[in-house]
């Protein structure tokens, strides 16, 4: 018999203004690397990363969206499948912070009602160019009842923590299965929500 290399699949989505570093945040998390050359994301892309939480292997399929308005219709069609959404702004860019409410409205309009949300203030390594105080990020996150991290893809600050926290929050919501399910029942029926089991005859 064979079983999957993971127990759960979580679909995440990165949104936010163009140039705030969504792709870099994802690249740091998935490949532990950073690239300074700015290449604007065309429409939508994704990366896969498997993490282990509470003894469960969780495959994260992370969708990276283009921040540019011209891709709006393409990117918003991916909101619905997301279980977690990371809204990223740039602490050196006031406009990207002001647009948070616009992005939150997009989530309300296009995503699942129970989607797990998180706010990231990226580029926190560039403190000399900071225009958005950390307290302002914390405040807006509190107002909307969502988690908040200041991150730096470049300096590798809080990136992994943010993704793992988001995955954990989704895991908490996921219906609980019988504890000893590592040996996945292969008798076909399965039926345990969220668990992928495979039967080979």
């Amino acid at each position: 018999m064979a079983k999957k290399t993971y127990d759960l699949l979580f679909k995440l989505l990165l949104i936010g203004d163009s140039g705030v570093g969504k792709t870099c945040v994802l690249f740091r998390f998935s490949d532990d690397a950073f690239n300074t050359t700015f290449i604007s994301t065309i429409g939508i892309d994704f990366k896969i990363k498997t993490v282990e939480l509470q003894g469960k292997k969780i495959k994260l399929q992370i969708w990276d969206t283009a921040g540019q308005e011209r891709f709006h219709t393409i990117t918003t069609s991916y909101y619905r499948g997301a279980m977690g959404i990371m809204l990223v702004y740039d602490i050196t860019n006031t406009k990207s912070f002001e647009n948070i409410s616009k992005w939150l409205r997009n989530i309300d309009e296009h995503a699942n009602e129970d989607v797990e949300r998180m706010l990231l203030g990226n580029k926190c390594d560039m403190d000399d160019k900071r225009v958005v105080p950390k307290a302002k990020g914390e405040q807006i996150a509190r107002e909307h009842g969502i988690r908040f991290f200041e991150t730096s893809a470049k300096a590798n600050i809080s990136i992994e923590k943010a993704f793992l926290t988001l995955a954990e929050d989704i895991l908490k919501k996921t219906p609980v299965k019988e504890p000893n399910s590592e040996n996945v029942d292969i008798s076909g029926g399965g039926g345990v929500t969220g668990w992928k089991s495979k039967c080979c005859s």
Partner: protein
Amino acid sequence: MESLNESSPALAFEKDAFELTVEDVYDISYVIGRDLLKISNTGEEVSDLQFKIVRVLEMFETLVNKYNLSLEEVKMERDNLKSELDRILSESSAGQEAQTLGPDKLVVDLKDPNRPRFTMQELKEVLQERNQLKAQLLVTQEELQLYKSGMLLHGEQAMVEVDLEPLPRSEQFTETTHEIEDGPKEEKSTISKLFSFRRK
């Protein structure tokens, strides 16, 4: 008789001042000169007047000449401006059409190699296909890695499986939990094939 009359130099006196040519001035000079000859034998005063009249006629000649030249220049300039105006009008008529399309419309330069020429729907489809292929590649890579290493060591080695459904559910919305349950059906073939192949 008539034709003689017409060509008579004296006719120049009857012309409109603005229609005078240098030839008309010469005709006038001729007539005045001829008439002066008739009284030229009366004395020095008349001969003095003759020179004055010649001088005035010379000035007249210069003025008529200058006027006619200027008139010609103005006419040429007018014609140039006219054709220029026609050219600009025909050129801008295309632009005019575009402008009447409305404020939200965009004019595209058809000679620009980087002009936009694919629709959002086309881009969407290309991206979906790209992402699907990418997902399949990831599965294949993982399968290959397992086949190379783990599978040869452990009979119980886990098989790979990646959600090959990177595309969002479009219209009919299924809960994510169902989505996950949906998964295995399609993936069965690849996985089981590889697996049974190894077990043989």
